[in-house]
Every structure is written in C-alpha cells, then in structure tokens.
C-alpha cells in the first residue's frame, strides 16, 4: 500500500490522534478521584504549614490521612466572605473542604471584576486565621497562604507554591525556608498607600513592618507574588479591618 498518499496520511494521523485522545481521556477520568484526594491533602498541608503546625516535609511523611485528621481536629471554622467582609457561606470542616488551585483562580477573576467574591478564611482553634493569595508569577501562577494572628494584622507564617517558576531562582518562594521565614512577625498595613504588604527588590527598608526582601535573580516572580499578596489582602480588607472584638 502507498503510505505516502495524501488521503492516507490525513486519515492515519486523524485516527492516531483520536485514539490517543481517547486513551488519555479514559485514564485521566479514572485516576481523577485519587489525584484530587492527593491535591486536597497537599493544599491542606500547605495551609497547616503556613499556620505553623509543623513543616510541609513532615506532613508529607505523615501521609494524607494524618493531614486531614489534624486539620479536622484543629479547624474552628472555614468561612467564605464577600467584598464587604460579611460571611456569605461556609466550607464544611467535617469533610475538610478547602479551596483548591482552580477555585482560587476563579476567585482571582472575581476579585479583578470586583464582584461575586467568595473568599475563604480558615480559622483555627488557636486563633490563627489563614487566607490564600493567588496571582501570576513569571512562567505561571503562584499562590500560597498567609497565616494571621488573632488581631488579623500580624503575620505568623506563610507558605507559597508555584506551577512553573525557575528552580533555584523563582522556585525559592517555595523551596527556600528562609524566604518564607521572613514573613513571621511582619504585619499588614492597610494605611500604606503603596501596598498593604510588599516584597521589595533590593531589600526592604530596615524597620518597615509590612515589607520583606525580594529574591535576587527572581525579580518577576517576587513582583508577581508581591502583587498577588497585595491584591488579595485588599480584597480581604473589609474583613480584616472589621475587628469584631472592639
């Protein structure tokens, strides 16, 4: 048979592509539940790391079940808030429901549009509240969690992740514990006209409580993360400044 015939070539290529697509679709849909469970445990372990309940690597060793159990035992409530800081809903703590990356992405669009926001706040029994951030890094999305003390101003910890930042440079937002350790003890300042919190290239000015040093060699990732943090904190502003205790 003449395999160099045009018609044959087109049909052959089409059939191969359709077959491959079918195989991949089948595998992907059958493995989805397992992948989702892994992803959920991963997200929760990031939240727990930000809230200073042990380190990410320890959670990884303990396994998914331990992560979920610990979360269920220590979470007080997981609320959803709107732009004016009012509670509009709740995430089930019994099922350990959390916002994954895709939900954060959707909310990121809502924040930009200024409507339809349903932002999660994870409130732990020890008074720590964790809020997510999401934005664009250099090559792909960056996201993470910032833990706030009971005054909703002091940062007690943070954890960040990324999809495809350069390992060793932008990847340090995740891999370098020294980078995220900088957040501990800093605070958010909504009165700062530039940003409620910023990551400053060339080093944060000494004594500035709402800024940390950027990563050298990763200007765009640092800037992207800085913007992500500011945009999300501004979206939470009404909630964070309400201070119901006063």
């Amino acid at each position, binding site marked *: 048979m003449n*395999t160099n*015939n045009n018609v044959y070539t087109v049909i052959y290529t089409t059939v191969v592509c359709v077959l491959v697509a079918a195989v*991949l679709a089948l*595998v*992907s849909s059958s493995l989805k539940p*397992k*992948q989702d469970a892994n992803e959920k445990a991963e997200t929760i372990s990031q939240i727990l790391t930000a809230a200073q309940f042990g380190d990410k690597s320890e959670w990884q060793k303990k396994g998914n079940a331990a992560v979920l159990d610990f979360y269920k035992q220590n979470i007080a409530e997981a609320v959803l808030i709107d732009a004016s800081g009012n509670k509009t809903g709740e995430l089930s703590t019994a099922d350990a429901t959390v916002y994954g990356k895709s939900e954060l992405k959707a909310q990121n669009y809502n924040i930009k549009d200024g409507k339809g926001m349903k932002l999660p706040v994870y409130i732990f029994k020890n008074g720590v509240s964790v809020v997510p951030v999401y934005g664009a890094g250099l090559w792909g999305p960056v996201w993470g969690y910032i833990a706030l003390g009971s005054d909703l101003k002091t940062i007690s910890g943070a954890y960040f992740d990324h999809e*495809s930042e350069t390992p060793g440079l932008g990847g340090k937002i995740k891999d370098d514990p020294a980078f995220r350790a900088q957040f501990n003890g800093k605070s958010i300042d909504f009165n700062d006209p530039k940003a409620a919190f910023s990551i400053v290239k060339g080093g944060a000015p000494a004594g500035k409580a709402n800024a940390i040093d950027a990563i050298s060699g990763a200007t765009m990732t640092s800037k992207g993360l800085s913007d992500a943090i500011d945009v999300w904190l501004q979206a939470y502003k009404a909630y964070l400044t309400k201070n119901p205790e006063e």
Partner: protein
Amino acid sequence: MNAKLKETILNPILKGNPITVLVLGICSSLAVTVELKGALVMALSVIVVCGMSSLICSLLRKTIPNRVRIIIQLVVVAMMVILVDQVLKSFEGTYPLDKQLSVYIGLIITNCIVMGRIEAFALGNKPIPSLLDGLANGVGYGLILIIVAFFRELFGSGTLFGIPVLSALGYTNNGLMILPPMALILIGCIIWVQRSIQKDLQEN
C-alpha cells in the same frame, strides 16, 4: 538468547550509553540528580516511556506515512509521558515526587534518547527487539542518573535516599554539589573513567 539480542540490550548500557557515549539527554540529568529519590523516579519514568514508545512505534512502523512519521512518533511519546505523569500523580507515595520533578517528567518528551531510539531503531526493527532496545537505553540513561545522584546527594546533602549518612558523621555539606554545573563535571568524570577502560571509545 542470541548474540544480536544480547548486543541490543548490553550496547546501550555500556558501549553505546546514551549519556556518556552519545551525549544525549544531558539536560534532564543536570536537573533531577540532586537527590537519589528523584533520580530513581525519573529513571523509571524514562525506562517506561522509552520502552513503550519504541514498542508502539515498531508495531506501527509499516503503516506510518513517511512524511509525518516524526509527528506520529511525537504523539505516541507524548501519550506515554502523560500516562506516566498521571499515574505518578495518583499515588500518595509518588505524588510529592511528581510535584518535585514537575516539568521534568513532561520534558521527557523532549529527551533526545526517546525520539532518537525510535528513529534509529524502532522504525527498522521488529517489536520485541525494539522494546528491549528502548528499555535498555532507558536503563543506560537511568544508571548514569543514579550514579550522578548518588555522589551529588552524598556530598551535597550528606544523605542517601534522605537518610543521613555523611551528615551523621559531622560532614559539612558541599553546596557546589547541589548546583547544576556539578552534574556536568560528574558526568565528565564518568565519561573519562569509561573511556580509559574502554579504549576503543577513544578518538585519535
């Protein structure tokens, strides 16, 4: 086992090693050899991808239209890579490793070894020898990866598979071993050792 089949299996591991002799697949061997665990998963992934895509392409070899053969090979390799990635993501034990290796699993598709073996071997040989050739090339690649990762993890972090070995003896970690250039230097050393043993590899 006949001599030809034996040659197919042993050649890629020793005399025709894809990394040290053909100098293919260098990029990923720099990136994933900081730790043994990552290197092992990467090695296994490449073995599976290389073997299976060689097998599939060899089965299809008489039907593939010559003008689009590279594209068809690419589709097959891409399918295998995505399958491996999906499977790694599904298990609790391998999920963190998959996250850590992240783009490099996907980048197996650009690993010259895989496409190179399909072009050079699988398209002209029967399925079984092609499968063995693919697997053997994967093993040849993985072997170097593991040797490099062994030295980098041992001297860079003082551990092996995350278990403290040298660091337990009060060894100070050598940060240079963690950096990518050290992988190149180590591969260079392996090539040196191999060429001084196998004299016929030396050029004049």
